């Protein structure tokens, strides 16, 4: 009985916290099907917001910028970062520590300072193109996340595979592409996904480093006072949730299977 009451309170608390976390997003999504211009006043179901969304060039442009910058920057930073991790891993201890510490700088640095420092650099060298600025900035802040996703996998795997490949006649390039890269693939993939999501989400660095070319975050910031089309919440939220659930459900199912397996063998604590 006590246990059931406890469980009830635990469930209620977790439920309330989840409600708190999702309420603003869900309310925006509901509001996006509302005919009325003001929140809290339901005048009937409509797709008007979505029609408007497609017809607003600022939004479709910003969406295009967000997705293409995320795609380019995540791929470039994954390639560059994977090679970097392989190179760093092979370095002598002291050099490696120095470079790894410097690599952590963008993760430690407040976004604000990273953004401003890049802005100063771009002004200093006279790079005016807003799109190029965004791509460079995003590659820069993505790189450490890729490197630190790949490095642990490299530590887990053995250098002997690489050396064996060389002994068997591979060039270093071939050995890396045919042996090392497949071995650390999970790290590379999670680095890529991480880079992509970070890039999609970024506001502060883009805001300072950018120049005239807006991504979605910058668009939302610029038009917050006038009001932002609530349909944006749906088109951002639904893909993100789906992607995350697909990625996570697989590992959860594996864990569940292991749990069942354990119970069968009687290993369960």
């Amino acid at each position, binding site marked *: 009985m006590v246990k059931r009451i406890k469980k009830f309170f635990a469930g209620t608390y977790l439920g309330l916290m989840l409600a708190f976390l999702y309420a603003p997003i869900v309310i925006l999504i509901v509001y996006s099907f509302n005919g009325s211009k003001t929140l809290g006043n339901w005048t009937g179901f409509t797709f008007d917001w979505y029609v408007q969304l497609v017809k607003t060039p600022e939004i479709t442009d910003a969406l295009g910028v967000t997705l293409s910058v995320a795609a380019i920057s995540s791929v470039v930073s994954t390639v560059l*970062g994977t*090679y970097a991790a392989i190179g*760093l891993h092979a370095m002598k201890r002291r050099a490696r520590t120095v470079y790894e510490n410097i690599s952590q700088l963008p993760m430690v640095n407040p976004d604000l300072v990273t953004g401003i420092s890049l802005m100063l650099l771009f002004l200093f060298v006279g790079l005016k193109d807003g799109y190029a600025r965004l791509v460079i900035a995003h590659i820069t802040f993505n790189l450490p996340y890729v490197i630190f996703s790949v490095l642990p996998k490299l530590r887990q795997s053995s250098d002997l595979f690489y050396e064996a490949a060389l002994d068997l006649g591979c060039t270093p390039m071939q050995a890396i592409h045919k042996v090392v890269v497949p071995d650390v693939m999970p790290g590379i993939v999670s680095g890529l996904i991480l880079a992509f999501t970070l890039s999609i989400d970024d506001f502060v660095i883009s805001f300072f480093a950018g120049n005239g070319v807006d991504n979605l975050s910058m668009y*939302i910031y610029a038009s917050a006072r006038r009001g932002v089309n609530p349909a944006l919440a749906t088109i951002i939220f639904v893909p993100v949730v789906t992607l995350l659930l697909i990625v996570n459900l697989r590992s959860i199912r594996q864990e569940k299977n292991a749990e069942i397996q354990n119970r069968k063998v009687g290993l369960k604590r």
Partner: protein
Amino acid sequence: MKRSNAGKNRGLSGLRMKRSVFAYPYIVWMTAFIFSPMLLILYYAFTGDGGFTLEGIRAALGWDNVRVLLDSIRLALYTTVLCLLFGYPVAYLLSRMKKSTAALLSVFFVVPMWMNFLLRTYAWKVLLGAFTNILYTEGAVLLGMFYNFLPFMILPIYTTLIKLDRSYIEAAGDLGANPATTFLKVVLPLSMPGVVSGITMVFIPSTTTFAISQLLGGGKTMLYGDLIYMKFITEQSWNAGSALSVILLVFVLISMTFMKKAERTTSEEEGGRLW
């Protein structure tokens, strides 16, 4: 035999040298876009109209600016305490559940973190504007910060708690401790590494947050990020803005060192990790 071994070793070190070449493109990139931009900030912070000067730093340490920094620290502290108070129970309850249920539920606690940060904050603006009268107050800013940083507190605590060996709890019970004592004397101390890294992940970013105060505070609550923005963009004063950035960086580094120390004293083991 001996000779062939030596030859092999020489060959190996030669190859090691070659492999580090793969890091060079990254090192070039890093020098261009991480290192030199930071040098530029330092350059502007310590120069004025006529060459090197400490005037910028001195101005940045003026009372008006320090007050804004203290205000930001105060709000960041409130945020951290709120996140800890509400986040710890979530992590604890999740860790007591069946593993697969907990794994699924923890994903749901993380998902909002991956939702566009600006859109979430904007959603609160709409919500607070429509249903309450606290929009454009400090309370609204605090709510926005609490909301945005809560998952960063839950996750590291949760990851330390699930690694906690259940037999310690059983042992405490067997030795006559009631659940409250068990929690205070066993679970809480053992979860400290997670708590420390949660505090790091909430406190430092929330001191330097930008945009939440602009969207939810309506410009009435000035935080350090807003101040730096104002110097750079509104006043176009790069020297003043860079000096403020340097002060912020120093503050962040000091807090990080402090947290690292706390982390080391709470446990030799690594605390919770986000990824």
